[in-house]
């Protein structure tokens, strides 16, 4: 379980989801959506 590539991929996926969640939450708090809706 100490494989660097494995941890890189796992962290990459986890962080990507976390940052997207952050973006979504903050935009929603501002009454907006993540992707632009005119």
């Amino acid at each position, binding site marked *: 379980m100490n494989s660097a590539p494995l941890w890189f*991929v796992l962290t*990459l996926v986890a*962080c990507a989801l976390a*940052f997207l969640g*952050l973006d979504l939450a*903050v935009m929603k708090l501002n009454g907006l959506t993540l992707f*632009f809706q005119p």
Partner: protein
Amino acid sequence: MKGVGDSKRMINGHMLYCNAKNPFGSSSVRSLLGFMVLAFAMVLGGSTDLLAAAVDAAPGAVQGAADTVPSGISAPDLTATDYPTVPGVNSRVTVWLVAQLHLWFAAFVLAVPIFVFIIEAIGMKTRDQRYDDMAYEFIKISITAYSLTAILGGLLLFSLIVFYPHLFSYLSEIFGESMFYYALAFFAESAALYLYYYGWHWLQGGFRKWLHLSIGLVLNAVGTTLMFLANGWVTFMMSPAGIDPAGVFSGDTWVAMHNYLWNPINLHRFIANIAYGGSIVGAYAAFRFLSAGRPEERAHYDWMGYNANFIAILALLPLPFAGYYLAAEIYAYSQQMGITLMGGIFAWLFIIQAVLIGTLFLSANYYLWCGMGRSDGAARYNGYIKYLAIAIIGSFLVWFTPHTLVLTNEELKALGGPYHKYLGPLGIMPAKNTAVNIMILFTALSFLFYRRSNRIATVTWVNAGNAAQLALYTTGIANLLFLGIYHGYFTNTVYKVAASIPQVMTTLIIIVVSITLDSLMYRGSREVAPLNWGRVPNRAQYALFLLAVAFTWLMGLMGYIRSGIRQHWHVTDVFRDASPDAYTPTLGYAANIVSIGTILFMVLVIFVFWLSQISSRRTDARGYWKGVQGG
């Protein structure tokens, strides 16, 4: 439109006519004088006739004493002749330079006790006396600067009274109460500072040390309160509150103080002062390092310079966010003011600001990279420095790319408009936000490498930890680019501004998670070899000087911008500036005045450093004094 001479005023609900042009003919001053006569008569035990005469002389005195809340204060309409002049002296330049010099010193003497308090607490926690000695040396520098701050504050007060008496009268009518308490608070500030400094070696060990630290806390509480009070006056001039539609001030001191831009300025100045104070004591350490003769002295001042730079970086990282918040609030208060600030005449000064901020980041990073030479284990990380430098310089270039270019007609025709085809898009705020976030991130990474340079991790999961950190930075930067590029160029302004918030949060999350992960990875780590304090090139010390000069220059420039966006108003949209200087000077002229101020400040600061240096020197004068033989 109010008349030039007599104007109407609401005093305690009564419409009065009074001469608005006489600053000492104002109602509150007359009330105060009447009240003083009344009090004097009572002290003397005078007859009721005398008492009645005093009340008759000051009809508003009784109400004025009972109700200190000013109400119904209107701004006078002035003409150029209402501004006294002193032959051979330019009033605007005088007030400009004196106010700026006062602010530079004030920022320094308010900031030093903040980090001295923290350093003293660290010393108490670790029981490492080096921290206590360093904290004492820092506060020693600020003692001399403290008296210069007070002298410049007095000079500023006299300059305002001499050159802008009506404005000062108007502001003191509104803020008289807080101005009085401001002056009183200086007794507490001075008492706390002198006790803190002169009692340093007396209050040592056990309970006494805690008592000393508590005095430091009181000193900081009073100092910060003083700054908040003065910020209330200055922000009222930018975004006045408590003004009715007729332009008459009808609120109380708190309403005027708690105006729209008060807290944004409070936050921005509080953080900036710490960064600035760190840079000035860093310059002091560099000054002492370069003039040190003995190796242990060089080691001491090298360590002090490193800590000062650390303080400056720590406060510099969140500073652009506080600045962005302040600018956003200026836009929210007045779009006209916001557009003048960053889209009008002052926009080019923001390009200069960007260059200076880039200089701060580059010099702070350069100092860290030079400092890695203290460690024998830094060679492992030297190869990465060039990539950090490329990322920081690349971001710096985007950071100061102008949006609208200043062009001749021929150039405009050749370019097809004022915007460059490729560089134009880099001139707008989403590009700047993305660039500064990346710059901050890579500065944090520089610091991470510096911390690691002398350690060898012993945990078994070191490879996994490094891989996780790499993934964290990769996804974080990708998110910054997504928010900056997608929301910056493919949505509308509402989305564009909103996206700046998750950008800031992304940067802060990366820094916090990365430092936490690194601390866990390096728990129980081995030291490569003891750090060689003093083994740094002189170039690193010049970087510390550059940091202090760039900070000073930057504060002077932004001080002019903050004040200048009021344009031809003393108090925005309420009190018109009718002085002969009520125009926005050319950018070159303003930059020259700011530069002259910077040079004056640096001369004074070097004098303060030199005083601190000679205070610890002794001249052997045996043979001069009777009964003491020469050796």
